[in-house]
Every structure is written in structure tokens, then in C-alpha cells.
């Protein structure tokens, strides 16, 4: 039986997006393509007439982890960005002036660079009440709309601005809302809690280096960093394929760095660059340091828990798949659900792995349990095992 590959719209619906959202995302993709000849052209032109493109960085419902991540960038370093690359005219975290003088920096940049400045947004906007987030006596929603109107490009930093993040987790008490649902223009979404520093700096420098915005996927994310699952790029993937899993924190398998799937790792349903670009100067990423991925760059990841319960099934078994092809539907397994979990991309691959498992029996003490999973999965013959790849 061949599993039907869900369409992007189906994938999005499964994640709780409405048809209106889907149409919006279609608009993002189309508009992003069109940007190179319209407003993006203005940005490029601005670069030619000014030493550094003017940038306004707004802060709403956030924890400032995105700003903190940004200054962790090892290449380029943030001092070079501030002095040589961008004119960071407004960012509440670093700017010298406060109060009226700070607002003047923001308002002057917007007024004097209509259609030519870049808007970076950190944080979600609460639509429940304008009193939930006010800066300088104005509501977050008003400030965002005012700043977005004349922006050449808008970037949503992190999961707050892209998806609403933690404050939008159920029951979302303040109606925390991602910015793409508020402003009527395309947004480059850079999700993650926070996003990786070098991903952030790469995205803002991409335009300068190549004269166009990075290619975006259906969710407005740059394909350059969000087209691959953490699972498919993880250095521990071979252990997953071989059925070698950590069963308990700091057990022998953990000390050998085996796969964290059974500990709840969300790598199989998370599109991000963590396993390749890594964090803090290519040093590590959550899985490498022993904790599963919690899926922080995926919409609604806070409600896709508990974090330590493993996934029952996930779509798109195949490292050739990308975000646009399979979407990111994820469910948490019920107890015992792992037996139904499909472990590889197709029958051929599964056979190969089973053979490897059999070969490895005398070598790896944890093969037995992993092997049992593979066999159980095989016995159950889940439909997914064949589908996935095109």
C-alpha cells in the first residue's frame, strides 16, 4: 500500500492552520518571488545610496533570547554588523537613547527611508487587549502596523514573531499572535527559540551578498536553513536506523551517544539547521549534548508534548524529503505506540537495516530492544513504510 503524501494544505490543516492561513502562505511564497522586482529592488537601491541599510528592530511579547542569540554570532561578529553592515537604528536592547530620543530614532528612520528600511520583529503581538503590550504609550499592534507599512522587507525573528511561541500555547491567555497574521505584506519567518545566531546573521546579510532575499518555503522560512529535518541531518541518525536508542537518561546508551528518539526527541518533525550549522560557533546542539530536540522552530511545538513522550509516527520517511514535500504533522505516541512506529524510508531500506541489525547482534548490547522494535514495526506493516519518498 502506498501512503498518500499529504498536500501542503493538508499538512497545514493538520497543524491547525486554517484555509485562510494556507492562502496567506501561498501569498508569501508568491510575493517573496515577486519581491526581487518590486520592493526588494528598492532595498537594493537603498544599499547603493547608503553605506549601510537602515534597520528597525522591534520588541513585543518576547524574552529577548533572539537579541541575545543574534549577538552570539561568530561569523560575522555582531560588532562588524553594527559598524559595517547594517545601520541598526532602533533596537531597545542595545541602543544608547531611551524614551523620546529612542522613539525619535525609530520614527526618523521610518519617515526618512520610506520603502527602504528593513523591519526586524522580535516577539508576538497580543490581540486580546491593547493594554497587554504597550511601548511609549502605544499598543504593540499599532507600532507594528506603523513600522511595517513603509518597510521594504519584514523579518520575523524567532518562534514568537513567526508562530506566537510560548505565550500562544494553550490557552493563549493574551491572544498572542504572529506578525504575519497582522501585517498585510510578506514576512520572512525565522523560527526557533531562539533561532541560531549564524542563521540570523546569514539571513540579514543574504540580501547584501546576493542582491535578493533568500528563497522561502511555503511557511515563509528561508529554505537555506529550514528545508531539512534535524532528524535527517543528525549525526546520531545512524543509531536510529540501527535501532540503538537511549532508554533512560545517563544510561550506557546515553553515554555512547545513541539516538534520543525514545526520550521524546522531536528531531523527526523539526525543520531547522541545528544538526548542521550547530550552535554557538558550530560547537554543539541539543541532541549532541544529550537532550532530545524539543522542536522549538515548529509552529505549536509547546502543545506537541509532553516533551519526553516519544512520537508515535511521523510523515515523510526519507532523508530526501524537505519541508515543502511532507509538512510537519506530528503526534505523540500512546503507550506502546512505538511498536507501530515505522523506522525507515521504504521496504528496501528497512530490509537493509534489519540485515545490519542481525549482523550487529553480538556487537551492540542494545540491539535486542531496537531490533524488537524493527521487527514489531515490520510485523505491523504500517502503511507509512512504503510511502514517503517520491
Amino acid at each position, binding site marked *: 500500500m502506498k501512503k498518500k503524501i499529504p498536500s501542503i494544505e493538508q499538512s497545514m490543516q493538520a497543524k491547525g492552520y486554517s484555509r485562510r492561513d494556507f492562502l496567506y502562505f501561498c501569498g508569501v511564497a508568491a510575493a517573496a518571488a515577486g519581491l526581487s522586482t518590486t520592493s526588494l529592488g528598492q532595498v537594493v537601491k537603498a544599499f547603493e545610496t547608503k553605506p549601510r541599510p537602515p534597520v528597525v528592530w522591534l520588541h513585543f511579547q518576547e524574552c529577548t533570547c533572539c537579541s541575545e542569540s543574534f*549577538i552570539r554570532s561568530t561569523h560575522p561578529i555582531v560588532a562588524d554588523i553594527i559598524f559595517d553592515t547594517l545601520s541598526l537604528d532602533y533596537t531597545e536592547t542595545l541602543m544608547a*537613547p*531611551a524614551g523620546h530620543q529612542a522613539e525619535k530614532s525609530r520614527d526618523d528612520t521610518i519617515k526618512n527611508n520610506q520603502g527602504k528600511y528593513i523591519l526586524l520583529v522580535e516577539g508576538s503581538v497580543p490581540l486580546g487587549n491593547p*493594554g*497587554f503590550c504597550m*511601548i511609549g504609550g502605544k499598543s504593540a499592534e499599532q507600532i507594528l502596523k506603523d513600522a511595517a507599512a513603509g518597510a521594504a522587507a519584514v523579518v520575523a525573528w524567532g518562534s514568537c514573531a513567526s508562530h506566537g511561541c510560548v505565550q500562544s500555547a494553550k490557552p493563549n491567555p493574551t491572544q498572542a499572535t504572529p506578525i504575519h497574521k497582522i501585517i498585510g505584506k510578506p514576512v520572512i519567518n525565522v523560527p526557533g527559540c531562539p533561532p541560531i545566531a549564524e542563521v540570523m546573521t546569514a539571513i540579514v546579510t543574504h540580501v547584501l551578498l546576493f542582491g535578493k532575499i533568500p528563497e522561502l518555503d511555503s511557511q515563509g522560512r528561508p529554505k537555506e536553513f529550514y528545508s531539512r529535518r534535524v532528524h535527517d541531518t543528525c549525526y546520531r541518525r545512524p543509531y536510529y536506523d540501527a535501532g540503538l536508542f537511549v532508554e533512560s537518561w545517563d544510561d550506557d546508551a546515553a553515554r555512547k551517544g545513541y539516538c534520543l528518539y525514545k526520550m521524546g526527541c522531536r528531531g523527526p518533525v523539526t525543520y531547522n539547521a541545528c544538526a548542521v550549522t550547530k550552535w554557538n560557533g558550530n560547537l554543539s546542539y541539543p*541532541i549532541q549534548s544529550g537532550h532530545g530536540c524539543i522542536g522549538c522552530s515548529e509552529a505549536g511545538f509547546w502543545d506537541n508534548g509532553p516533551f519526553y513522550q516519544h512520537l508515535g509516527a511521523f510523515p515523510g520517511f526519507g532523508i530526501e524529503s524537505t519541508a515543502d514535500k511532507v509538512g510537519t504533522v506530528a503526534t505523540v505516541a500512546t503507550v506502546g505506540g512505538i511498536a507501530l512506529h515505522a523506522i525507515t524510508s521504504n521496504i528496501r531500506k528497512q530490509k537493509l537495516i534489519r540485515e545490519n541489525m542481525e549482523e550487529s547482534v553480538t556487537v551492540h548490547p542494545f540491539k535486542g530492544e531496537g531490533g524488537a522494535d524493527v521487527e514489531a514495526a515490520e510485523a505491523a506493516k504500517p502503511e507509512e513504510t512504503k510511502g514517503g519518498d517520491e
Partner: protein
Amino acid sequence: MARIVVDPITRIEGHLRIEAVVEGGKITDAFSSGTMVRGIEKILRGRDPRDAWAFTERVCGVCTTVHALASVRAVEDAIKISVPKNAELVRNIMFCAQYVHDHVVHFYHLHALDWVDVVSALSADPQATSDLAKSLSNYSKTSVGYFSDLQKRLKSFVDSGQLGIFANGYWGHSAFKLPKEVNLLAVAHYLEALEWQKEIVKIHAIFGGKNPHPNYLVGGVPCSFNLEEVNAINTEKLNLVGKIIKDAMNFVEQVYLPDLLAIAGFYKDWAAIGGGLPNYLAYGDLPTKGYGFPDGFKLQRGAILNRDLSKVYEVNGADENEIKEYVAHSWYKYEAGDTAGLHPWKGETEFNFTGPQPPFENLNTDGKYSWLKTPRWKENPMEVGPLARMLVSYAKGSQEVKEVVDEALKKLDVPVTALFSTLGRTAARGLETKLAARWLKEFYDELIGNLKAGDTNTFTRDKWEPTSWPAECEGVGLTEAPRGALAHWIRIKDRKIDNYQLVVPSTWNASPRDPAGKRSAYEESLIGTPVAKEEEPLEIIRTIHSFDPCLACAVHLYDPDGNHIRRITVS
């Protein structure tokens, strides 16, 4: 009389507004307002307690890690487990790394531009700056060429006409007192610190996978040690931690501390400004004999009243007569009336926004004017933070703390009372950083020793499965965030979070006044502060920044259903 509004207060975490009344060149009254709310506690209900650290860690990304630590401790207290020695050492190392990072970034990137005139640095003499730098420390970058290249870079930046983050600063303000060369030195180290800060947090990436927001774990730490394996924390990774610690100690002792003392020497008048409240509170942290034994903490627990260092009061977060929260001037309401004070375990948080609809010019400060509640310790407003910690440990006789504090007071030639001030707050943070960097090394050496002795355990396994928990239990996790005393209270029912409460440092410091009209730390500290130019509130942000505000932490208490939080007891 003029009413000055500073909103946004920049170079902080979160959204803070200050309204100050100025008469005769001095502040006579002040109001502090947190202007953003998210509602994390409400979101936590019904979830797996083992996940809570991840949710609460997102309360703040500047003081990342601290809420995760408070959270795992609260759960461990509830289910009655202690963590292995290695886990405690890794947590202590991550804690100290956070302090060193946070305090250095605060000094250079959030606070320095209140004292350093960047424009003045343009006309400094690079030779004289080099001589000055050499006289202050043994830091490697002190050549004339280094300062002259930096100055050229600054000049070409200014000549571009795009001043970026420096635009509309208070350059040339009469309150700037530093010689040009000190300004140039400080700008150089602003950039050095910006580049260095990304290194110290690599300790978090090694043990926790990433920074900001590394991973924590109820029962221990998620990383494993294995000296026979490339796929775990091994000798190479430990060597990297050791190297980062060595570099951090060097940066703190050769750059941060010398700069702090040099700059402070020109602002001694600020040792008599901004003192504010006379009461200080610290929960303490950095266990050396286990979290359950506060006497073994590097940072001591206690309270000081009326600046009397001869007596330190015991603090008990479980005693319902000690910590209470008020909402008389906060956008919440209590069933028993808005003048009531409730212990966090009995807390109610019904939302009641009565502020003006934006856009507005002024808040009605006679009524409710902030998203922060107002905590009190035995009815007293308390200051929390590095100054409170240093004072409590000093007063309790900690030799390590006494040594660094007395040495700095001697260097600056000021009495111990100089600590009760804006300058004292900023100095205490630096001195604490010096200790935190030393303790990093101490805990690291202990970790190596423990591994050498054959103990590689990082996790307490027996209570991991929620089925092993009692049907109902509750716990409290106390810690010290870089900005001050932090506590999480959890109640667990049927293996899920029944209630979760946080009382955080900036709630203590930045809250509105209580029903008796008593001001909290920010508001009180501004009284008497001189304001040279009402349109340029440099002096206000100096004192406010000396607290290192963190508003996303402070404003999270929101339960729109007005649920009553049941009384719970701490075992």
C-alpha cells in the same frame, strides 16, 4: 514641576516605563510600570511537571537558564529527589557562567553608555589611552596602534552619518565626567566584550546543547560523561570548558574589574545617589553540600533591614507571614479586596486592566499602573540583586565576599556605606563577577576530581516516571537570578501541574507601590536623583540600569479566570 516620562527604557530586557516628577532639578516622586504581559503560569497548568523548565526558561532570554534551574528544583523538591554530585557541579558551572556573561554584558552593553561618552572618544589621544590601559591591567590589547585603529573606525562610522544604535544618545551631557582617553578605552572594551561574551556561553552549549536556552533535566543534567567515547562529554570537551574558564577569569580580572574601578573613580558622587530602599533580600545559591543545605551555599541566604549589617534575618519562603504579594496598584484584582496581601501559595491573579487605552500620554498613577504585582517580605519593600547578595554574604561573614568587597572599597577610598547607592549596585555586580569567575574554576576542578575518582553519574533515575510520584505533592525551587532572588512554587496533582507560581527579581525591584503607599526599589531609588536636563533623562536611566531590569521576568502573572490558588505547604 515637570513630569518626565521615559518609555521605552532601553538597554534592558522587556518593557519598562518610568514616570518621574522633577522639582528644583531633583526627582521628588517616581512611578515604575511594567507594560507587557504574557501569562506563562496559566499556560503551565495541566502539563507534565518535567516539561515546566522549558516553558519557564522562556520567561527570560537574557537571564536564560535561571528559571529552568528554579523549575527543576521545584519539581525535585516536590517528588523528593536530590541530584548526583556531578549534576550539581554542572548546574553550578552553568550558573556561574551565566553570571559572568550576564554581568559583563550588563556593564558594557546595557549600562556603560550611561557613563561613557562615545563622541568624546573620537578626540582622545591613542598614545595616552595606551599608557592608561597599560597602567590599569595586563590585558594584551593595549598598543597605540590598537587604539588608533579603533578611533579611525569610530570616525569613519560617525562620518557615514548613520549612527545606528548610537544615534540620539546623550552625548555631551554635563553628567558625563570621564576623560576622553577613558571613554576611548571603554568603547574599545565595549567591542571586546561584545566579541568575548559569545565565548563564555559555550559552556552552556557543551553541557546544555545551546545558548540562549540550554537544556535542563529534572533529576540531574541531560549530558553524560564518558572518557572512553567521542559521543559524550569527554576530555576534549572538558578541556574546552577549562580554557573558556581561564579566558573568562582573564577577561573579568584584566578588563571588566579594572574598567569598573577606573570609571567608578570619576563618578564617586554616584555613591551618594540612588540608594533607595534600606532593605535587602537574598535566597542565596551555589550549593557546595547539596541544595538542601543553605549554610553551604557560596551565596548566602538572608535579609537585611535598615542597612544594619550587624543582623541578618532568616528567610523562609514557606512561611506565609513572610512573602506576600499586593495588587493595589497592579492590573489585577483580589477577591478579598485590592488591599489584601497574599502569600504566593494562596495567590489570586485575576486580570483587571484599568489603564488608559493606548495611545496615551500619562498613566493614572493614583490607581493601578503596572502589570507587576508588589511583593513584600514581612511587609517590607526589599531590594534584590547583586548588591543584596554581596551585602547578605558580607554581613554573614563570608570571607571570600568580604575580601573582594573590602579590597574594592579600599581602592576607591570610600566607606562601606558607599555601597548603598547607584554606584554601589554597579560595583557589587562587578565584584560578584570576580567571585563567580573564581568559583567557575573551583567547581570545574571539583568536577574533574569527581570524574577522576570514577563517578560519572549525572542523573537520579528512581523518580523519573510520574507513576512513581504521589497523587499530590508540592515543592519550591529557590535560586538567585543575576538580577536577584527568584523562586518557583509548584503543586502537582495526578502527575500534572495543578498550579505554578513564580516570584521573580524584577517584581521585587520594579513593582508599583503597596497599599500603604510604600515605594518599591526602583521608585524609591530615584527620589533625590538630580536631573540636569529634563528632556535628556540620563540620570534616571543610570539608576534604573544599575538594577539591570528584566521585565519579561517580572510580568508573567496572569490568570484570566481569576482562579484561586490553593494553599500548599513545602516539605
